[in-house]
């Protein structure tokens, strides 16, 4: 069932062109690239886990604030209106665009929440002596949440909408607007400080839990 691992853990197959190569030992901040297709294979980060943890925690707090206060408001001849991120999706839903509403909710609310939540769980799990297996599961699915989390795209969209509306009405930027801009940078920093290889190297192996060939690794994995 499980494949035989190679003893040499510095060997790596490039994910973009499949060239088998050896990873050099890197200094913090340095990166290794594939000699054939120039894909960045690994970038070593200094104090990766602690920095990522701090940034993720900050991102989680900002995320909660961003989704609970109004983002945009406007006044026009004495009348006022305001909306939150979720309010925008809700309005689409009520006006017959349920699919688009789900997409907006997914890319602007759910995926960022998963991105932050997964990262928090990964970093907390990785702080243990021997990170448990579920850390690996989250680590494997984390890139997907990152692909669909589009807060920075939303902020550009909001900017364009602001300019459009400014022709008709006075726009009042809400607290969430500023918080979301900070969140964009926090998420980028969180992502670039994280070194997944460091976590993979310490994680508890799946094979240890398998009934066959368990023996030695179970004893090593449980304190």
């Amino acid at each position, binding site marked *: 069932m499980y494949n035989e691992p190679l003893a040499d853990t510095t060997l790596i197959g490039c994910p973009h062109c499949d060239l088998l190569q050896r990873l050099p030992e890197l200094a913090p901040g340095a990166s290794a690239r594939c000699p054939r297709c120039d894909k960045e294979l690994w970038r070593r980060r200094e104090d990766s886990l602690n920095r990522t943890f701090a940034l993720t925690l900050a991102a989680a707090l900002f995320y909660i604030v961003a989704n609970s206060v109004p983002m945009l408001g406007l006044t026009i001849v004495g009348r006022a209106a305001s909306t939150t991120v979720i309010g925008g999706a*809700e309005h689409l839903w009520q006006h017959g665009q349920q699919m688009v509403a789900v997409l907006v909710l997914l890319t602007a609310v759910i995926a960022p929440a998963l991105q932050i939540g997964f990262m928090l769980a990964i970093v907390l799990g990785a702080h243990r002596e021997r990170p448990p297996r579920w850390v690996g599961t989250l680590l494997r699915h984390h890139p997907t949440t990152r692909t669909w989390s589009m807060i920075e795209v939303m902020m550009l969209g909001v900017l364009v909408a602001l300019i459009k509306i400014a022709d008709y009405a006075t726009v009042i930027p809400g607290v969430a607007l500023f918080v979301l801009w900070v969140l964009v940078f926090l998420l980028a920093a969180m992502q670039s400080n994280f070194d997944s290889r460091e976590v993979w190297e310490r994680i508890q192996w799946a094979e240890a839990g398998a009934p066959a060939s368990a023996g030695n690794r179970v004893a090593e994995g449980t304190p």
Partner: protein
Amino acid sequence: MRPPPPRCSRACRAARPAACSRAPRQGRKKGRCPRCAEELTFRKTASFQRTWAFLIAAAVCYIPANVLPVLTTTTAAGAESDTILQGVVLLWSPTGWPLSLIVLFASIMIPSAKILALAYLLITAQCGSIKNNTQRIRLYRMVEFIGRWSMVDVFVDTFTAALIQLQPLMSVEPGPGLFFFAAVVVLTMLAVESFDPRLIWDATSSKEVRYA
């Protein structure tokens, strides 16, 4: 007499035994990773078929996305519907032209460029091309990186519609084109996800082995 060399079973029919040997190998499962328990495959499963399917679906949706209105503005004077392109024109002003350009790029040029670029990558990979590999992998990375920005227009319309609710003065509602436009963005993103960039290099690596 020597038997003829095996031929590619794919569309191009070229005599490339090396590239042909890759076909049965594609997507075949090879046990699990002992570290993360993921079921391993040599390549992404059915990459060509899936990418083509998503891509054709995206190209079909691209037409209604640009023809149907994405926003309907109702004022005391009556209702007016705008397509994506009309939205770009409306945004064009002495001060707002940079944003107008951003929307033009994100909503019209990026989706069409993405569809063309992926079709080019698929066709060259399927024909076992060994030319311009570095440029093709760069093109793939560019498509992967830039694709998400097409969502800008969906967000613009979402928040414009959500805010301008001042009946009976003025109200803005999302139009049917928005669904198709969102579909184009999602389908092209799925197409990029299902394309396996290693397919670009397969023909090259087998040649390297042969002529080494």
